[in-house]
């Protein structure tokens, strides 16, 4: 059953001294509960816009977003958005532990002390035991993204909306984070919507890959990967099905995508 539904979503940005731009054109997408879905598209195709609309952080110009059956008008409690620029979304004046605690400490019945205990548990889950007293800026990029992940998990969301979360780290760290991501997804029964421009990442992690057109963006098609679960996101890259999918999606991107990139 669908946990996140976008129906005929449109986004128009007012033009700066020019005509308004249609960034998204009647985009519909249905995300099943418990699946790992990637949204794949070239740079500048409005992937982040789509994800922010799904997260209730941006209002669609037309159409509707439903999370767990309810129409979204602000950030829904079921979903948490994970930012691309982990360095900018972490609070540099808070320790790693207090950054994670930030996700829950405002909730009724959660004391500061309890929030910290919860935070430590999440830090352990992402492999950062013992780093609670550090500050984010003392950690490497990959570790900072783990902190952001721990913070997202602390809120106990049903849906994680991830905006190119692994794009700013080096290739090895990225593979490391892929493994962690799949492990957490399996263990916690999460629904993950991952935005990326990396075909291999999308295929290696996902149950389905939604291909986005260039602006005005809409879903070109949705591909079932059909790759086995549980899955190792590194080993799966050697299977024929992976190569086949990679080829197919790359071809589609290269013919559809714009030549020059802008912002995701």
């Amino acid at each position, binding site marked *: 059953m669908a946990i996140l539904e976008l129906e005929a979503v449109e986004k128009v940005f007012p033009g700066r001294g020019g005509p308004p731009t249609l960034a998204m054109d009647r985009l519909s997408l249905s995300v099943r509960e418990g699946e790992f879905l990637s949204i794949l598209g070239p740079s500048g195709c409005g992937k982040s816009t789509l994800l*922010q609309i799904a*997260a*209730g*952080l941006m209002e669609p110009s037309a159409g509707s977003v439903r999370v767990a059956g309810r129409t979204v008008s*602000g*950030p829904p*409690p079921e*979903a*948490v*958005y994970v*930012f691309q*620029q982990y360095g*900018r*979304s972490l*609070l*540099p*004046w808070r320790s790693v532990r207090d950054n994670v605690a*930030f*996700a*829950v400490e*405002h909730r009724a019945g959660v004391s500061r002390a309890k929030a910290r205990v919860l935070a430590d548990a999440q830090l352990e889950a992402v492999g950062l035991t013992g780093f609670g007293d550090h*500050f984010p*800026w003392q950690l490497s990029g990959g570790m900072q993204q783990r902190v952001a992940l721990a*913070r997202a998990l602390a*809120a106990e969301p049903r849906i994680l909306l991830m905006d190119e979360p692994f794009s700013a780290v080096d290739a090895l760290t990225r593979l490391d984070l892929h493994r962690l991501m799949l492990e957490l997804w399996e263990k916690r029964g999460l629904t993950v919507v991952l935005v990326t421009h990396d075909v291999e990442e999308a295929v290696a992690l996902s149950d389905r890959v939604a291909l986005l057109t260039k602006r005005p963006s809409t879903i070109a098609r949705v591909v079932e990967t059909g790759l086995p679960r549980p899955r190792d996101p590194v080993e799966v890259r050697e299977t024929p099905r992976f190569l086949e999918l990679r080829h197919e999606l790359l071809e589609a991107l290269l013919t559809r995508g714009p030549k020059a990139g802008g912002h995701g």
Partner: protein
Amino acid sequence: MRRVSSGVWLVLALLLLWEVSARTGLVDSPNWPPLTRVIAVLGRDIVSGELPLLVGSTLARMFTGLAAGTVAGVSFGLLFGASRLARLVLGPTVELLRPIPIPAVIPPLVLFLGLDNGMKITVGAVTAFFPVLTNTAQGLRAVEADQIAMARTFGVPAWRRLSRVTLPAILPYVLAGLRVALALTLVTTVVAEMIAGEQGIGHYLVLMQFAGRAEEMYAAVLVLAFLGYALNRGFVVMERRLIGWFFATGREG
């Protein structure tokens, strides 16, 4: 370290020059007493409690004005940052008032508020207001949009986003404004004391000048020099404690 100590040597050399020029008659004037005599008077008046009392009253006025100006500056800075309308309506007025040298408003303020504390505290508050205001507004423009959006995605309510994200994020900017305000407020408070009324170290300084008591006059100048230096040093220490993260992340550059 070597540069620091050579700088200190220069200070000592200048003080020595002061002493020697007064002792040898290089500068032969009753208005130029040797440094040692000034220091003797300084010590005497500190021990007697006269100077500490004067400095205390000046500092009390200064900090009251500074506090009032800072609260007003941060409030208006937040208003400017939050509301385009406020910027449009109040912006030109602020830009027009800001360049007025504060000592120029002392005579009119005397007419309305008299010679005593009310006037001097107002002078300090007006002095502190503008640098804090502009830095607060600047800080708001520098707050990461991602940090606010992050708080929203976790369902953090608006007032808590303000207190837990926006205010800590702009603190380095507010403190930068406060540091400027601190130095300026000391200046304008002392000037206000010199111009009007019979309070504080500023008034004492002018009084000693009229009385021709050069040692006492220089002692007051030395006290003010030390005060300006100590306030700034103290502020830097506090700043490093409060916003160490800001310096560590290299955002000051």
